[in-house]
């Protein structure tokens, strides 16, 4: 169970003064103990994530060499190549879109900026597989676009196939760029204009100032956003399955559903995880030791774009908004109108409530844990996310959803059989699952999966804060509690909101863990989408999918309004 880590600091602090008055030796010991204490949140998060990973790693105890041999002989090379292409494609497109859009809306002024500012975040609310299916429906050979083109240019007209690395990259980027956009937007906004102005006074052009000042300062945020986008790309199965584009996850699912060999699938998944761990490690090394802090922006005067530039900026933002949001949602709306509201029964209220309740509880829990971890790291003097525990805690997101879900389910089932079953047997009660199939297990599963999504924005906001704030607060007599409540939380609020929002939306879209671990009767909108889409009935899935999008919109809009103040 997640210990509320905030319970104990007060004890610690009340002990502290008396310890100070005593001998140096006691003081040193207590300092050492405190140091360990601040590690607790990170270790707890790591343990939570490592539990299912350990279950998955146990798969290596069985020998699956024939499946490995088969995969290596037939397709592993292609799969790795495809995955690499996709990562490069999604990484570069998502970073380009995310950073350029964030820069425009947070630093410049142009017509329509105010609503594009939040509008550009909305694609996040649409599940990837939905965008994938809409894109495929529209742009494949039998879709309306190519059909129309063939009518105009003759039946021999051929467009490059959307079912290719390029097509899949574009589609995934359209859904995943908001991660980069959101995080770099809040970074750019808190930078203010001061340093960019200084650079310009020293003779840099606006572009140079952006490259040499604003961009490097936003790098932790951009990196955090890109890491999320790439981890999601690596773990994605839904969208690539719609395109029948084979990636490394394809091999994982093939081993499980084709060969009925979960251990082999788990082995493959842990290899994938190893790559992700190495990539995260490399990213942190590459960031280097130098740190850049900034003061919160005092005043923000935007660059007012004029004439053609202003229209260009509006046009660019609008284009992305239309492609990534208006078209998919429009298609869903079209389907809903086409199929009618027949599926809208009284159970829908339950579906919406369950979806939102699970999302809200999981988001608050995950973000609280993330704050505790980030704050703990700060107290240890670690400015960036360092150390084994921190890295381990961020791995949950990189697993293909189904494999992680099974890992979580197996570990909870283990807890059930080792801890709960003997107690029940002792009390002469019939054997029954307590954890598996309970809301608690489901929420914990969400925490495991989305911890890093919550941590990313919070950590990157922390990283931009100077340690001198803490020093100032402490020199004015604030204890750790007051420091957290009155100094850090208010200053971190954009990051916290971003984290809450991301986790909330991700949980509401989440499918494999929800399917496997939900209690009886706890169907969510994502479950309903699955019911329809798994047999290819996309038109009928439009209603729950659209409800899901609408449900995600409310918190997105709300939080953006907050963060604007």
């Amino acid at each position, binding site marked *: 169970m997640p210990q509320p880590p905030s319970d104990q600091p007060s004890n610690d602090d009340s002990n502290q003064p008396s310890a100070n008055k005593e001998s140096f030796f006691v003081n040193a010991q207590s300092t050492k103990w405190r140091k360990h204490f601040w590690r607790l949140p990170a270790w707890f998060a790591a343990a939570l994530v490592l539990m299912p990973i350990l279950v998955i790693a146990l798969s290596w105890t069985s020998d699956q060499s024939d499946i490995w041999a088969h995969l290596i002989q037939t397709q592993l090379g292609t799969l790795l190549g495809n995955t690499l292409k996709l990562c490069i494609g999604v990484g570069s497109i998502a970073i380009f879109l995310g950073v350029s859009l964030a820069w425009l809306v947070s630093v410049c002024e142009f017509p329509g900026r105010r609503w594009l500012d939040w509008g550009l975040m909305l694609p996040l609310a649409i599940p990837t597989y939905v965008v994938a299916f809409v894109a495929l429906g529209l742009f494949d050979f*039998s879709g309306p676009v190519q059909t129309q083109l063939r009518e105009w240019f003759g039946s021999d007209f051929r467009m490059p196939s959307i079912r290719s690395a390029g097509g899949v990259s574009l589609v995934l980027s359209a859904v995943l760029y908001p991660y980069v956009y959101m995080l770099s937007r809040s970074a750019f906004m808190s930078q203010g204009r001061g340093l960019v102005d200084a650079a310009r006074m020293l003779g840099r052009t606006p572009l140079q100032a952006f490259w040499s000042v604003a961009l490097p300062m936003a790098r932790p945020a951009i990196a955090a956003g890109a890491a999320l986008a790439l981890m999601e790309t690596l773990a994605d199965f839904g969208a690539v399955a719609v395109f029948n584009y084979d990636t490394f996850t394809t091999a994982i699912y093939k081993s499980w559903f084709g060969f009925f060999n979960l251990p082999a699938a788990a082995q493959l998944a842990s290899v994938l995880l190893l790559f992700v761990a190495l990539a995260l490690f490399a990213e942190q090394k590459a960031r280097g030791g130098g740190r850049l802090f900034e003061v919160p922006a005092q005043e923000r005067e935007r660059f007012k774009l004029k004439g053609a530039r202003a229209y260009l900026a509006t046009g660019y933002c609008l284009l992305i908004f239309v492609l990534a949001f208006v078209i998919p949602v429009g298609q869903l709306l079209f389907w809903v109108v086409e199929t009618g509201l027949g599926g809208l029964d009284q159970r829908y209220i339950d579906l919406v409530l369950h979806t939102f309740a699970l999302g809200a509880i999981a988001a608050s829990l995950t973000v609280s844990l993330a704050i505790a971890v980030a704050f703990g790291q700060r107290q240890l003097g670690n400015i960036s996310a360092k150390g084994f525990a921190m890295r381990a805690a961020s791995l949950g997101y990189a697993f293909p959803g189904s494999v992680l879900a099974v890992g979580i*389910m197996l570990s909870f089932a283990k807890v059930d059989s080792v801890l709960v079953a003997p107690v029940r047997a002792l009390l002469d009660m019939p054997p029954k699952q307590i954890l598996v199939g309970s809301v608690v297990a489901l929420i914990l599963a969400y925490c495991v999966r989305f911890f890093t999504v919550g941590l990313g924005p919070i950590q990157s906001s922390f990283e931009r804060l100077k340690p001198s704030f803490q020093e100032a607060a402490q020199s004015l007599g604030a204890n750790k509690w007051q420091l957290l409540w009155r100094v850090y939380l208010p200053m971190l609020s954009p990051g916290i909101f971003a984290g809450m929002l991301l986790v909330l939306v991700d949980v509401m879209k989440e499918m494999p863990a929800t399917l496997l671990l939900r209690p009886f009767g706890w169907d969510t909108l994502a479950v309903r989408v699955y*019911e329809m889409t798994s047999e*290819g009935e996309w038109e009928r899935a439009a209603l729950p999918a659209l409800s899901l999008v609408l449900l995600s919109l409310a918190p997105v809009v709300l939080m953006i309004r907050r963060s604007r103040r």
Partner: protein
Amino acid sequence: MKAIQMKAKWAPSLALMALAVAGCSQKEESKPAVETTETAAAVAEKAEVKAEATKEAPVVTVYSSRKEHLIKPLFEKYTAETGVDVRYVTDKAGPLMERLSAEGESTPADMFMTVDAGNLWQASNKGLFASLDSESLEANVPAHLQAANNDWFGLSIRARTIVYSTERVKPEDLSTYEALAAEDWKGRLCLRTSKKVYNQSLVATMIQTQGKEKTEEIVKGWVANLATEPFSNDTKAMEAVAAGQCDATIVNTYYFGRLKKKNPEVTLALYWPNQEDRGVHVNISGAGITKHAKQPAEARKLLEWLASDKAQGQFAEINHEYPVNVTVKPSAEVQAWGNFKADLVNVEAAGKLQADAVKLMDRAGYR
């Protein structure tokens, strides 16, 4: 209120059941029984019976990879007929099997329902089912559509057949699945991905009847004839045929039924292949009682009911499938597609040979 009355009607048998299952939880004993205005003795007797009934009201729990909208109407009908509630969770077959085996004897599930004989065979192979001796199931489910060890029983048949463009293909040009691998189909064939279990089962039964080498040659021929990369679902493949990207594909008939319903003008038609030899490839959806079922007797009744003529028509019709029970006719729409000779090879072969089929398709470059 309605539910309570329903239960009251069945109270005597349920009470017996409750005793038989050796109920030991005493939680709800103090629950007041339903008010009545009969004589004191009758009230007392009834109250006792009802107390028993609420205590152990049988609820059959089903883990299902058959989708909710295909099973819910039937379960509701069953509840209306018998007063026995059916609750279920749906997920993919693989995760549900993992869940069943991880939960072991503490599982709440009484029945596991899934599509594809391969999945059923796997579940049986993992020891998740309890074997069932049931005269009515033996009578209603043909032998080649159930497990030899009576672990599971087919409940509906799904035929996987050829769909062709009526604009560019004459039915005389078609004959068998194998013929689609011939040279004259170069660049004219569309297929769904080999990752879908339906194609895996098709190839697995081909291995069973023709042997590995011959099957691999055929699959290679298909791949060589592809007009475009395989599609992620049957509907997309049919749409490609209709749009002129290719001339024929292999799909489950109910997808054709759905497409036809949505777009009656579509220039596609079904063709029943291999009528001179083994027949059309068929697969099933089916179910079995779990090994650690808490309500095995109730689950058995439900399964028998699902295979009976009371439920079979609706079970199949709801998804344009064919009933397993030969006394029940498919829906008018499905009948209009004509009769065909089905492959009588036991569908268990699909399960046994599935891994071989996947490997074979990987080797042949069928994605």
